[in-house]
């Protein structure tokens, strides 16, 4: 009994605040919007599907933040990857289009990684610069024109398709979160990422290849943003230079609300998923409540502030 009590006391409540908040908001909306289609399977699946690209980017961001870095360039990576895959798909097999988009994301991440890990430049400034550069590339690639995607296989795999009745965007969410969670918590790589975020000097002293891990988290973040670009373009059956433009703050908010620390060392992939779903839940519920756009923004801001305050306060204690 005493052992059970001790184990119970050892549980860190800060890690569960976001889950409790999420469930409370879900229950709140379910009561208020009981007659407005909120609790239908279709609407709840919509929330997961709509947040799939944010969730995928959030998983990459958890690794980056835990390693004590940040990636501000994910928004335009989404657009560049989506456009490149759409261009390649005009005349090629679906796999080539998807591969090209993912490769573009990873390659941009590698460029960021080289500058951060090997040139020793701060990731905040490097990715701030590449964010601007890539926004220009996205506009220049097709001269602002949208590129339609008519490849049904691609659109099915990355957009509106289903497998055994489960929408593909839900499958992507589950798959990426599962993989991310495993590598983050249970692999040697994840342990290295944590160690570097805690103390790069100590990590180096115990033989961790700090530069290589820093490089890799930037590549991972770029690849995740590239995959998010594919998910957006598959969903919309086309790519456009504005895709991902407004996602950066949503992704960071989702990750922080989920319990990942902005200055490294601590994080959670499942928390990031919950944070991302929370953002989608708020968007969805506030629209269904029939609020005006201004009211939606204000209410969302207040709820997010409360969630962040709770998460960060508990983390500090």
């Amino acid at each position, binding site marked *: 009994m005493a052992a059970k009590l001790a184990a119970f006391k050892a549980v860190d409540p800060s890690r569960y605040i976001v889950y409790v908040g999420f469930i409370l908001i879900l229950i709140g909306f379910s009561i208020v919007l009981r007659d407005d*289609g909120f609790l239908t399977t279709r*609407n709840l699946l919509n929330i997961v599907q709509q947040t799939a*690209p944010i969730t995928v980017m959030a998983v990459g961001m958890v690794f980056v933040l835990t390693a004590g870095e940040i990636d501000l360039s994910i928004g335009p990576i989404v657009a560049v990857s989506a456009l490149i895959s759409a261009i390649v798909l005009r005349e090629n097999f679906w796999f080539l289009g998807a591969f090209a988009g993912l490769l573009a994301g990873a390659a941009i991440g590698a460029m960021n990684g080289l500058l951060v890990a090997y040139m020793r430049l701060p990731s905040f400034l490097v990715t701030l610069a590449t964010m601007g550069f890539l926004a220009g590339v996205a506009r220049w690639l097709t001269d602002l024109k949208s590129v339609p995607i008519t490849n049904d296989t691609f659109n099915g795999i990355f957009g509106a398709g289903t497998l055994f009745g489960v929408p593909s965007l839900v499958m992507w969410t589950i798959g990426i979160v599962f993989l991310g969670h495993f590598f983050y918590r249970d692999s040697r790589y994840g342990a290295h990422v944590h160690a570097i975020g805690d103390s790069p000097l100590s990590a180096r002293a115990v033989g961790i290849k700090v530069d290589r891990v820093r490089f890799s988290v930037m590549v991972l973040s770029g690849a995740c943003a590239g995959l998010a670009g594919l998910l957006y373009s598959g969903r*919309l059956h*086309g790519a456009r230079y*504005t895709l991902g433009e407004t996602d950066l703050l949503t992704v960071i908010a989702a990750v922080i609300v989920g319990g990942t620390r902005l200055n490294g060392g601590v994080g959670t992939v499942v928390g990031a998923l919950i944070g991302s779903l929370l953002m989608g839940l708020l968007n969805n519920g506030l629209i*269904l409540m029939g609020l005006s756009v201004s009211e939606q923004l204000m209410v969302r801001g207040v709820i997010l502030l409360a969630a962040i305050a709770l998460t960060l306060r508990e983390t500090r204690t």
Partner: protein
Amino acid sequence: MKPRVQLKLTAIAAAIAALSTGAIAQTMGPGGESPTLASEVTLTDAEVQQIKGMDATAALLWHTSSDFVNAVTAGAEDEFKRLGIEVVATTDAGFDSAKQMSDIETVMAKSPSIILALPLDPTTSAQAFKSAVDAGVKIVLLSNVPSGYVQGKDYVGIVTDDLFQMGKQAADALAESIGGKGKVAWIFHDAQYYVTNQRDNAFKQTIESDYPDIEIVAEAGIADPARAEEIANALITKNPDLDGIYVTWAEPAEGVLAALRAAGNTTTKIVALDLSEPLALDMVNDGNVVALTADKAYELGRTMATVGAYGLIDKPAPAFSVAPAITVTKENVADGWKQSLNREPPQSVIDAMK
């Protein structure tokens, strides 16, 4: 038939069509549709009664939030109220195609009978609106149409402001203010966006064809309105003797005005599209701003709601309805505000007029 002859015949046919409808020939629909005046889109008393008994609902899925959108919303909401149609949701996609698709999916949970929306981009909007089309929602489009969509089948009708006239009237107003000759700059919206592209090009086309003594000596595109001031600074530095500047819409024009003020420039004239309090105040105080051209946004919203109601009762709707443009100067600022946004000008402007 030789292409040039064919072109002339097409132009004559368009002119005849324009005369017969009483509309302006130049603003054509995204698919080349001829315009119908918004004032011709009406419902009979019997039709109003029929619609009132339908318990219909509507959702407003906007592309952004602005004074213009507020006025369109007000016009639509007033008309929906008159018709006994409840507005169940309003959204703002923030110019993001993916967010617009999410908004549509979310709103479909409330099964609205009518959707009023501005599709952000023809290519990606085709998929974004598909769930609403499949569910048989009566969709009324503002200015833009998704690729491959057919009027009467996928959507009820398009309503827009008279984009060509807005650009043309801005050109006429600027030309008049500088005596029909001089050097002007053209600050356009550097994006693939039907509404601003049409208006910007109409200004340029009018100056080039109607005003041989006016030269466009500088062109600058803006993608981010917040950067308008620095773009204007560069323009003024390179061309200190500019007589006039056209700015694509009000928000960047406020930045251009700030740049002129900072440079102590009181002679270069500004024309811009859409109404804005700071610009109107400068205009009333005899500053750099000489005219603002605007659309009748409230009327546009009313027309969209009425076209939606056409869809409910299967009344054939015009493919492309146009709300007229107006030029607002110091002389007609109060009336212009009323006509465009259906409200009085801001108090600061009223005070400055006294």
